[in-house]
């Protein structure tokens, strides 16, 4: 029964022939073709039953051309000869209408390592398998007198990027994610998982975590807002890290004086080390960026000191240095992004992070985080689905969710301990972070 459902990606030879024909047809001085193809399915559940269940097969063909110092970009979601002509003609037309300007250089052919990010089990996961997986979480929740909600998805994708200077890269990947909220009458818990190989996801293990969290998080009572010592679980740490990346790890933010990064200066506590590595298979790896540049590891913060930024072709040109392989698809005015983030673990078992805290707050995850002051790395948001009071080194009771307004760098400056284990957190939209849980000295709750 897998014949219909097996992810249907176009054979590499066929895609390469398509991109080569498109490159050969282009009259521009430089031409870049990026084909992204994906087949994905997502099973969504609420109140212990499946209520939405979807699948999609799609492709994006994006063409960037440079002619007479003019750039044109066009895209289409058809991989046909007619489509190729259409998208190329539109890119050329746009370029012809523009005044000559600063051109983002295309990269020369550079070797990118091959990374195995493919799982046949994920690529061929069937709707019945997804339903059975979800059923286990729903039935365990129902048996506990609780209700399960969430989404379980499997995706297979491939990216091919080639340009007229000879760059030619291909990468295929799979990705499975599960998130679940389990609710009781007076409180909820949360858990999520991500993996390249769907067989690494265990519904019983996820159900155990989220049901335990929901059980412990019933009938929360409020605590006074204020400054507390906190333990942040990996869900919250990863979100904080993503916001740091969004606000300041890219070279464009630094070049436009918007970034908090002061290279060479200590900006967090000494135990903090953060880097980006698109080649590390313990994340969600990709060997090259969306400009066709091989990814390099970049140390962003080491021993609390700001040590590096990520670059794309344009910011690299401005800085007189090569791209680090962090470019986004053209046209891009947002600059480069670090999307394969890692934070170094510590030595303390996660369960012992609260042991030295006299009175503090244990936070499972954040919700609706937004930037308040980018240069000071101040964010605001709510805690959600698992906020607990810590008293004399132990978690004692659930507390009502709190709003925080806090500088990330100041919070990390008070790092007391990092867990010895790390967890992979897929970003909501793109990329992932592998992070430990943290014990921080001060965190400000404003309501």
């Amino acid at each position, binding site marked *: 029964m897998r014949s219909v*459902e097996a992810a249907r990606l176009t054979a590499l030879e066929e895609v390469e022939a398509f991109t080569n024909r498109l490159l050969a047809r282009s009259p521009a001085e430089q031409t870049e073709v990026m084909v992204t193809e994906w087949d994905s399915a997502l099973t969504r*559940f609420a109140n212990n039953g499946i*209520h939405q269940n979807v699948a999609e097969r799609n492709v994006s063909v994006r063409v960037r051309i440079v002619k007479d110092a003019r750039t044109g970009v066009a895209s289409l979601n058809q991989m046909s000869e007619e489509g190729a002509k259409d998208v190329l003609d539109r890119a050329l037309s746009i370029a012809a209408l*523009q005044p000559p300007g600063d051109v983002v250089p295309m990269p020369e052919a550079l070797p990118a390592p091959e990374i195995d990010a493919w799982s046949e089990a994920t690529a061929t996961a069937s709707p019945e398998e997804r339903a059975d997986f979800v059923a286990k979480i729903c039935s365990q929740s129902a048996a506990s007198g609780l209700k399960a909600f969430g989404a379980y998805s499997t995706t297979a994708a491939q990216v091919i990027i080639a340009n007229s200077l000879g760059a030619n890269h291909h990468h295929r990947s799979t990705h499975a994610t599960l998130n679940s909220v389990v609710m009781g009458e007076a409180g909820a818990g949360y858990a999520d998982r991500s993996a390249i190989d769907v067989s690494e996801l265990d519904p019983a293990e996820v159900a155990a975590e989220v049901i335990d969290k929901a059980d412990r998080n019933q009938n929360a009572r409020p605590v006074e807002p204020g400054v507390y010592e906190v333990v942040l679980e990996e869900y919250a740490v990863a979100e904080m890290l993503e916001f740091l990346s969004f606000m300041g790890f890219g070279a464009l933010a630094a070049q436009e004086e918007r970034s908090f990064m002061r290279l060479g200066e200590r900006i967090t506590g000494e135990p903090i080390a953060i880097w980006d590595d698109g080649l590390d298979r313990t994340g969600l790896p990709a060997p090259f960026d969306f400009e066709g540049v091989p990814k390099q590891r970049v140390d962003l913060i080491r021993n609390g000191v700001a040590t590096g930024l990520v670059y794309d072709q344009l910011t690299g040109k401005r800085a007189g240095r090569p791209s680090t392989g962090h470019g986004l698809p053209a046209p891009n005015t947002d600059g480069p992004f670090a999307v394969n983030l890692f934070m170094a673990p510590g030595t303390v078992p996660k369960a012992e992070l609260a042991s030295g805290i006299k009175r503090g707050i244990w936070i499972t995850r954040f919700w609706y985080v937004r930037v308040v002051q980018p240069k000071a790395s101040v964010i605001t948001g709510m805690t959600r689905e698992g906020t607990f009071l810590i008293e004399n080194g132990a978690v004692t009771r659930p507390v009502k969710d709190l709003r925080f*307004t806090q500088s990330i760098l100041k919070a990390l400056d008070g790092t007391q301990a990092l867990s010895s284990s790390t967890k992979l957190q897929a970003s909501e939209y793109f990329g992932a972070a592998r992070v430990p849980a943290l014990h921080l000295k001060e965190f400000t709750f404003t309501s």
Partner: protein
Amino acid sequence: MKDLAETALNAAQVKGADYADVRISHHVQQNLNVKNGALASVSDDASEGLGVRVLVDGAWGFAGSARLNRAEIELVVDRAVRIARASARVLTTRVNLGSPVTSRGSYTTPFERDPFQVPLAEKVDLLLRADAAMGEANGVTVREGSMEFIRETKLFASTEGALTEQTLYESGAGIEAAATSPDDVQSRSYPNSFGRHQGAGGFEYVAALELDRHAARIGDEAVALLRAPQCPSGVKTLILDASQTALQVHESCGHPTELDRVFGMEAAYAGTSFMTPDKLNHLRYGSSLVTITADALTPTGLGTFGWDDEGVPAQKSFLIDKGLFVGYLTSRETASVLGEKSNGTMRADGWNRIPLIRMTNVNLQPGDSSLEQMISEVKDGIYMETNRSWSIDDKRLNFQFGTQLAYEIVDGKRGRMLKNATYAGITPEFWNSCDAVAGSSEWKVWGLANCGKGQPPQVAHVAHGAAPARFQRVKVGILK
């Protein structure tokens, strides 16, 4: 396209679907960005495909594909039906769509100038003139301007006999100036924040914004904000400009009245709602000045159309009537649970997504005050303008917003400019403290083209009619 739709519907019925609908859409989009005096990017994107939604044994299945040919459609329908059968294995309640929907007809967004026929040079020239005007302010470090134009043609057909064809146009633009110091960055934007102000219409919508006329002020204000004092902390009278009032409506009324959220269908992602059915017709949501409608017939609104993506006709309904919570945004499936009919709010952000309950044009009705009158009546307060940050909890109760610009109000007069202004509150307490709303002359439809919801994530384009409004006893200045 009708042939392909019929093929899909026939195949779905043959394969056992009790109900099926199909959407075939073609979406084209042009984006322009100007940055620091130069054209930074122009892109032209197109997407087309088909999505089939089926009900089998009371359970939903959906599949979509970019390949519009008969062989692929057979595979798509196979996949949707198989997915629905898998859904039925873990079903708690059979879906009931209520009475059939048999809408037929066509609709096109009214416009004067087709944005795709306007020369690129004219668009770029307008953005560059605004860019230059922003640059006249000494101290502006980054200047940006953008435009977006969309044309979507879509056909909807169902096994109940509905067949609608629509062509929807959107046009939008915006400018932003940033000024930086070693430890601060301040931005101002016009007409709204986060990219653009957008509406249903043609290029005339963008031309009417007069970006170049407002650009110099935006640049000046960005620079002035760097030197402005911090917004003080305290409990004060708060006046919001119309655009921030619109976002307040969006987050604290639009989202919590989505009936799918109320039923837990978004619980694992966007959250639930404090506006549960037991509160319907009982909850005093706001003061008597607060009347909020969902109106898919509002001219230039991004939530204006002929039919929603279930074929239900565009209509107007009340969510809040003189402060009382009286209605939800509904779909066929959720409305039937309450014994009602859908009020036509189901929209998908493309052929490859299922429709979800989305805000249409959720409008705060105008009052009889004015911004100047409101200010003149305040002894000690803050006026805030243009959103900078927004955050609200998963039940839509506890919120905190920040704005780009603020002024203190002292003894009925506008005082010093303030930076980093924030305010926070609890939704019903906040709206019950509303004691003035400006009148029709200051009421405007604000387009929001970045409303996220659903898994896989979807981005809806929605709108809010709003005017400046005043609130009492509000916590402001969260950061000292």
